[in-house]
Structures are given as C-alpha cells and as structure tokens.
C-alpha cells in the first residue's frame, strides 16, 4: 500500500514538472511553431504521468478506465489542434524564427 502511494506521488510530481516545462516553453520559445512543440509534447507527458499516478490510487477498474479515456481524448485533441494552429499560421504567412 505504502509503495503504491509513494510511486503515485512521484508520478504526480513528475507530471507537474512536465506541465511546468510546457509553460516555460510557451513563454520562452520565440514563435508560434516552437511554442506548439512545447505545449503538445510536454503536456502530453505531464498528463500521462498524472493519469498514471492517479490510476495507482483508483478504487475500481472503471475509474482507471475513465482516466485512461481522458488521456486518450486529450492526446487526440492536442495533436489535432496543434496541427490546425500550425496550419493556420502557415496560411497567414507567419515566418519561422531562425
């Protein structure tokens, strides 16, 4: 019991660090394309670790399944939206930062 609690906490903290990294990237990266990199990839891993941490604490299979569904939906949404934002930026002729 204690082992799963410690492991769960470690996963949650690691997840939070990735969310922080995503936000730092959003602020520090120079243009829309590079910022999308930070948001999609770091937040995907961040949420994945948070979900893994919470699954360890889940009381039933259905709760674990719900968490997993949330992660999959967010993956799909963030990848699709990143693509659409990048495509719109290209259409508008926004140049790459070099």
């Amino acid at each position, binding site marked *: 019991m204690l082992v799963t609690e410690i492991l769960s906490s470690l996963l949650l903290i690691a997840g939070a660090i990735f969310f922080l*990294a995503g936000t730092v990237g959003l602020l520090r990266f120079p243009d829309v*394309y*590079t910022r999308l990199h930070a948001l999609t990839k*770091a937040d995907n891993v961040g949420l994945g670790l948070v979900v893994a941490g919470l699954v360890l604490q889940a009381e039933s299979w259905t709760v674990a399944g719900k968490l997993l569904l949330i992660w999959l939906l967010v993956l799909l949404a963030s*990848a699709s939206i990143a693509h659409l934002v990048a495509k719109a930026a290209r259409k508008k002729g926004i140049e*790459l930062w070099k």
Partner: protein
Amino acid sequence: MYTNDQKQHLQFAPGHSVIITLRTGLIRAVLFTLIWWILTDGAMNSWLVGVPVVLFATLVSVQLLPPFSWSLIGIIRFVPFFLWRSLYAGVDVARRAFDPSLPISPQMYHYRWRLPPGLPQVFMANTVSLLPGTLSAELGDEFLYVHVLDKTGAFASELMILEEYVADLFGLKLITDRSEE
C-alpha cells in the same frame, strides 16, 4: 499514384463488404459497450439507456468511418514505440525549454509521403506532433510539412521509422520506389 494492391487494401472487394461491415460493427459495438461500462461505473440499471446508445453509436460510426484495414500485430508493435518516443519527446522539449541557452534551430521540412491518403496519413500527421522535435504543420498531397525544432537532429530517419510503424498498423506495405510511376 498507388498500386491496385493498396487500393484493395483500403476499400476491400465488394463481395466481402457485408461480412466486413458486420465484423467491424461487432468490434466497434464491443468497444462502445466497454466505454459505456466505464462511464457508468457498470451500473446495472444504466443499460436500459446504454444498449440503445451503443447500437446507435455503432450505426453512426460505421456510416461516418467505413471499415478500414488494420492489423493487431501492428497495433501491438505501435503502442510501446509510441509511448516510449512520446515520453522521450516530452523530456527533450522540457530540457530545451529549461536550458538557459535555448538550444533550438527550427526548420520546415518537406516529408514525401509513402503512405496512401486518408486515415493513414491523418493518423501519421497527428502522431508526428507528439514525437520528438517534430510538429505537423500541413498535410499536402505529396508532402507532409513538418516543423522541426532542431534541424541538427535525426528527425528524417525518425519520420521514416514512424511511417513504417503506421503502415504496419493499417496492414499496408509502403511504396519504396516511386520513380518508375
């Protein structure tokens, strides 16, 4: 642009289509049942609503997304590859974001498709954005326009490997040489 073999793969021969639609419907109905069970915590009295909803969702899904070819072995190969590479992608971008010198050198890379158009290309475009240092910026007829975070990295070979995994997933063979066509 694509061989007849590949078109067959994507569309199926008309004679088999009824069986394939039924099989696809059955598989999807099982998946929707699983999702309903998860969402309702397996409450018995919810099935009164759940059974019609699952049937309706299955009908709509077969209408909107007709059966396509896929491979179980391809899926089993793809999942660990994707989990590992997307974890690496997160670590990689986090390292760059925290590094005081901000080590990035972006580039727009034109990746020539080997996958057939439709679902396989869309699937790959979505996956590209979650893998290390690449972001799909536009889905062209001939190229996938990929924004690369660090042009000194091995992104080109990474994209080719990903495309092979995606082809596997959909039970397709990639066209290796297009110069003759």
